[in-house]
């Protein structure tokens, strides 16, 4: 019976964050500040977006842009975080990499779902239907399926260490979809309007729209970062409980001296 004593197999590796206990302390210290910054950004963003003038065509619905676009960006940002975590698992074998990837998946799925819903509500008055099968929306729906597939994969394999590599490989395979989303508006003639911020020759949005969008995007990103630290902490705790259960069983086995 191999004697599993250490709670999480920690190998010497780069970065102070590698040690889960130190990471947990860091999170405990950082969280209050992160919440303060996130809430402040949200207040500023919402205030700015409601101060923005109405769009001459869309009227009031342009306000939906301020919550649709950030959630799409964060959905893809979350996937980028998972891709780097997947590399962390496969290349550098960083012990927290799988934790980071696994913690980001539900958040990414939620932001993707939000992006789909708000986009669909925003599109209804303009396109007349809730959903249209065009390149941008479909590839974004594929992103949601990839997220849900990853969550199902992680839930299917009970042993966390065993799930790390297959999940990482699946993340990398799924990564092809993100550029497709980004450039789908350019490659195919889509109903979805072309990129208006991150473009070769600079944003086409006028400043009073650009500022609320930027602040809201920052607020969303900070929210994601805060939630991601929390879900990573939850995942570490889940693994601690699990290994503590294993050691209790092992100790009961060894303690069986009549």
């Amino acid at each position: 019976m191999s004697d599993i004593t250490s709670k999480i197999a920690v190998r010497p590796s780069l970065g102070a964050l590698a040690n889960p206990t130190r990471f947990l302390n860091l999170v405990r210290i950082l969280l209050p500040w992160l919440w303060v910054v996130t809430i402040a950004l949200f207040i500023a963003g919402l205030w700015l977006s409601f101060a923005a003038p109405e769009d001459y065509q869309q009227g009031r619905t342009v306000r939906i842009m301020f919550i649709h676009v950030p959630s799409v960006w964060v959905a893809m940002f979350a996937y980028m975080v998972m891709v780097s975590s997947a590399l962390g698992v496969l290349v550098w074998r960083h012990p927290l990499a799988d934790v980071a990837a696994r913690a980001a998946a539900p958040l990414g799925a939620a932001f993707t779902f939000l992006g789909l819903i708000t986009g669909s509500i925003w599109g209804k008055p303009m396109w007349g239907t809730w959903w249209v099968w065009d390149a941008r929306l479909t590839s974004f729906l594929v992103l949601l399926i990839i997220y849900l597939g990853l969550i199902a994969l992680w839930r299917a394999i009970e042993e966390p260490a065993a799930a790390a590599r297959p999940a990482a490989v699946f993340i990398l395979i799924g990564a092809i979809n993100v550029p497709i989303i980004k450039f789908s508006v350019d490659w195919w003639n889509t109903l979805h309007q072309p990129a208006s911020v991150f473009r070769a020759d600079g944003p086409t949005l006028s400043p009073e729209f650009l500022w609320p969008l930027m602040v809201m995007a920052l607020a969303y990103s900070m929210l994601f970062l805060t939630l991601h630290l929390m879900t990573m902490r939850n995942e570490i705790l889940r693994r601690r409980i699990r290994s503590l259960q294993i050691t209790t069983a092992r100790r009961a086995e060894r303690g069986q001296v009549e």
Partner: protein
Amino acid sequence: MHLVVTDLSAIRGGEVIFSGLSFRINEGEALIITGHNGSGKSTLLRVIAGLLTPATGEVCLNGKPEGASPDFDDRKFYEHCHYLGHENAMKPALSVEENLRFWRAMDDEPHLEIPEALEMVGLPALAHVPFGHLSTGQKRRISIARLLVSWRPVWLLDEPTAGLDTGSERQFAELMKIHLEDGGIILAATHIPLGLKNTQSLVMNTATMVDETQ
């Protein structure tokens, strides 16, 4: 209360496993079934447990242990039996306590409380541990604990001490003694001497009855 088996025979896959088997076991007695592998020990236990239909013969339980529920007799025979097969009948994803609580709720005659049952098998600390994390020996002892959480007079045990170390074996022999003293009946297919007093033994390959031996 006594268990009577008359002219029992079983055929599986067209081949006669055993035939013309009759015996009677009284309250507080045990029957140790031995024989080489594939001699039909498990088949006999599964037939008595009602999981396999016998070719001929019948199994019946006469009389009633004191303190049994009024409608004791009219329930099917196997409802008075606990069966412990090669598998442990526990879900790896559920914790030990959840598994035992489930089996205790499934039977209508609860017996020991779960902590008490775990204490009897010497694993009190494992209540919250998911069953999948236990070692083979511990899993076997938890499936033995299942026999304790609800009361059924007849125990049908197929290699009960498989995977157990000597300490746990002695502990289980102790549990079997207590069950016999409580007026139960035990049929156990095992090679390991369980040190029980009033036992009959049945050697399966020649399917003959060997009378009372220590």
